[in-house]
């Protein structure tokens, strides 16, 4: 039975191809000169360089975190190249017609066509290739609404006031080891600003692609939703199939000002390595948002890729009545290791948070939920509900739950529950007895298990997520 289930969960990594694109890549190594060169490449102002160097100096004094339930050989930060960009991007193409067709082909192959007429209406894409943003679509249409959606390297020049004010305001430079590294060497990423009272007219999306060998990707995303605004943002990512491990250390900062709402969805599909754990991406990401009064931040993530995942999208519920949500499906198979979860820090009165985490482990993988819910003394009337369910497929994998719950306010209510189970023989028998083949049956059961999270995803993503888990969504309705 387990064999059938495992077979049903196996799939090829479809995004594992390499694009043959000539790149300008820095020689491996990390020092202040490299940082100066990155900054010079981006023609950054002096304050930005100082900010990077400050982060680098703190990083040198910090220790790599060891508390996560993951094991990997020590990373040699001197053997990584910190900047790589397609040569064709050097002249800064003005429009899509000037972009290297090979680059466009890469995205087409990944199912992300960048020609606006070919795209799903209503999704604007910022495509980041190694260390640079290739193109951002629908910018004119967004500008009409006053929405800023551009590469962060461009925002540093065009909107220095906003960047200065908010960069590092949610995830400070010294926050943690990988965040400090990111602050020092980040190359590109997306910048979003939604003006007061605006509902962003379309979904915004960033697609991250690592292509070059021996590089690391360090992107940085900053989303600011001004008072009363609303935005939904999607993030996707893939990388070629290689035997070496590659590091991806990103930082995402969300700022939801009074009455604003940010919905951030991720389908993470970095190359997970082969069945024996060879190759794959180390995904060490810091994501955090701050909610001001009546604001809401909702994180939804579907994690299927990466050799090692270390990721805790969090919410600081600073303003009264603010809301934080975290919906997660993490699937690990082969030799993958995931340590993921969230932090909900309740500071304001009547703040609410919901955490729904579904972990599926198969093969020899290890899947951990690690979370923190903290009710500070000021969080009167705050409320948290957490549910962590794990599904084990096979007897060689592991599923773990490490929830920290800290309460310092008597009127706050915290509830945490977790269960662990397997795809039972009874469920399989019932489905097969009704004429479903075993693969369909597993899909259906797994899909049912994840349904609470999938329903939070925007339509296009829900379809992709379903596909990723080899699950037909139609089967689960009802």
């Amino acid at each position, binding site marked *: 039975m387990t064999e059938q289930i495992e077979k049903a969960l196996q799939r090829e990594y479809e995004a594992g191809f390499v694009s043959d694109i000539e790149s300008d890549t820095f020689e491996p190594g990390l020092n202040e000169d490299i940082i100066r060169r990155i900054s010079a490449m981006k023609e950054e102002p002096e304050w930005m360089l100082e900010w990077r160097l400050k982060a680098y100096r703190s990083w040198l004094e910090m220790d790599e975190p060891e508390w996560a339930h993951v094991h990997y050989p020590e990373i040699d930060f001197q053997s990584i190249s910190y900047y790589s960009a397609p040569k064709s991007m050097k002249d800064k193409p003005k429009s899509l017609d000037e972009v290297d067709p090979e680059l466009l082909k890469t995205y087409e192959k990944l199912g992300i066509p960048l020609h606006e007429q070919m795209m799903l209406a209503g999704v604007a894409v910022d495509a980041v290739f190694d260390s640079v943003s290739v193109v951002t679509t629908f910018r004119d249409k967004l500008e009409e609404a006053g929405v800023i959606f551009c590469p962060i390297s461009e925002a540093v020049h065009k909107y220095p006031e906003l960047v200065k004010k908010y960069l590092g305001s949610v995830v400070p430079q010294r926050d943690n080891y990988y965040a400090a590294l990111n602050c020092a060497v980040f190359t590109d990423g997306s910048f979003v600003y939604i003006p007061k009272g605006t509902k962003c007219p379309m979904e915004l999306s960033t697609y991250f692609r690592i292509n070059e060998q021996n590089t690391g990707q360090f992107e940085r995303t900053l989303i600011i939703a001004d008072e009363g605004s609303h935005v939904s943002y999607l993030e996707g990512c893939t990388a070629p199939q290689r035997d070496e491990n590659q590091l991806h250390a990103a930082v995402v900062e969300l700022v939801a000002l009074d009455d604003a709402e940010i919905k951030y969805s991720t389908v993470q599909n970095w190359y997970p390595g082969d069945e024996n754990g060879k190759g794959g991406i180390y995904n060490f990401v810091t994501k955090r948002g701050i909610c001001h009064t009546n604001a809401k931040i909702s994180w939804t993530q579907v994690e299927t890729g990466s050799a090692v995942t270390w990721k805790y999208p969090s919410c600081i519920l600073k303003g009264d009545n603010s809301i934080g949500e975290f919906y997660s499906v993490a699937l690990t198979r082969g030799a993958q290791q995931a340590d993921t979860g969230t932090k909900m820090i309740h500071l304001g009165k009547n703040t609410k948070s919901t955490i729904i985490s579904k972990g599926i482990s198969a093969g020899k993988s290890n899947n951990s939920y690690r979370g923190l819910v903290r009710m500070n003394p000021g969080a009167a009337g705050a409320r948290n509900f957490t549910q962590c369910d794990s599904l084990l497929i096979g007897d060689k994998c592991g599923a*773990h739950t490490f929830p920290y719950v800290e309460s310092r306010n*008597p009127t706050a209510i915290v509830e945490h529950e977790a269960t662990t189970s397997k795809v039972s023989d009874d469920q399989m028998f019932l489905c097969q007895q009704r004429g479903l083949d075993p693969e369909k049956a597993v899909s259906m059961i797994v899909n049912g298990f994840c349904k609470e999270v999938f329903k939070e995803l925007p339509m296009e993503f829900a379809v992709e997520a379903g596909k990723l888990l080899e699950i037909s969504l139609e089967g689960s309705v009802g």
Partner: protein
Amino acid sequence: MSNWLNGAVARAESVSDWLAPKRQASLALLREAQWPTRKTEAWKYIPINVWDRTELQSDAVEVNAVAESIEGLNSIDLVFVNGELTSDLNDELPAGLSIVSLADASADAQSWAAETFASVKPSRHLFGLVNDVLATQGVLIDVAAEAVIEQPIRIVNVLTQDSEAHTRVLVRLGQNAKASVVEQFCGNQRSKNTGFAEYKVGESARLEHYRFALQTGESLSIGGSHFELATRAELNSTLVGFGSTLQRVDVDVTHAGEHAFAKLNAIYLLDGKELFDLHSTIEHAVPHGTTEENVRGIVADNSRAVFNGRIHIHRDAQKTLAELNNRNLLMSDRAEIDTKPELEIYADDVRCAHGATIAEIDKTALYYLQSRGVSRSQAQIMLNFGFINELVDEMPNDVLAEWLRPQLRDRFAAMEVK
């Protein structure tokens, strides 16, 4: 490194008795050990420095303390005052039961005890290692196979002003044996003690266990009860903790034989500036084990409770059933609860769940009682009592439950909103 720990290591070097080889091994670990800081996961929430900082006046120790017996319990009492065994062990004992003092154990007792010593208690507990090297006082309790001991065995540790004590209890239950052991700690003056107990529960044996960690006030106490369950063994354990300047209890249960059953109930009630830290770890190393753990706490005034409940299901432990539930009532806006129920699972055919809640007293229930003419403070006592009485009711020994209830009631009365 801590001055106190350096001193302890120095003192341990002069300890020499029949446990010497075991003590040496622990001493070696202790020399390598790091004094915990806020970054040490096992001591994350408790300021351990208070142990180091607290100075005891060694000339002020008073020894004329006695432990009151529990009426109607008819127990075999073993009383330690400041770590010295004061009970006479020559009284006649029921057939099948042997109790000897650690200091003058017979060769027979030495052989099983040396095997048990530090084998059930995991070596990761820093203060367990301290106890390994310093506990020259203690008792060895051996229950022969098939023996059913009706009389509870009660081990009392009384601590008085400025005393420091390290005591050890080793218990072995033979096949099909049955026994009931009560570990009781009392004293409310400035003192330091470590009290660790190791239990080997044999095949199909049944152990009823109580740990009353009732030290309060300025006392500093760190200890643990550790169990190893053989095939079809049964453990029913109840822990009751009051807080003090520092109270820490570690409970470890290892399912070493299949079809073993462990039921663990724990209650903590804190007031004032008290601290209480309970860490429990359940190791399911073999298939078909069952664990039910229920932990409830009420935390008032300026106090702080920490609970860390870990369930670890090893690769081979298929068909395990394990449930852990932790419920807390927070009574004041200066009190704090930090709870962390953990699951670590490597086997797929298991049913495991945990839950944790933190809330305040049900306002509507309070209102209901007040509307029926019950005063607010009385209503609060009633509701608090109701919250934990379920676990008190589950205590298999009614005499102990009756003895405990008034003490709990007194705690609740003191806890009312000030």
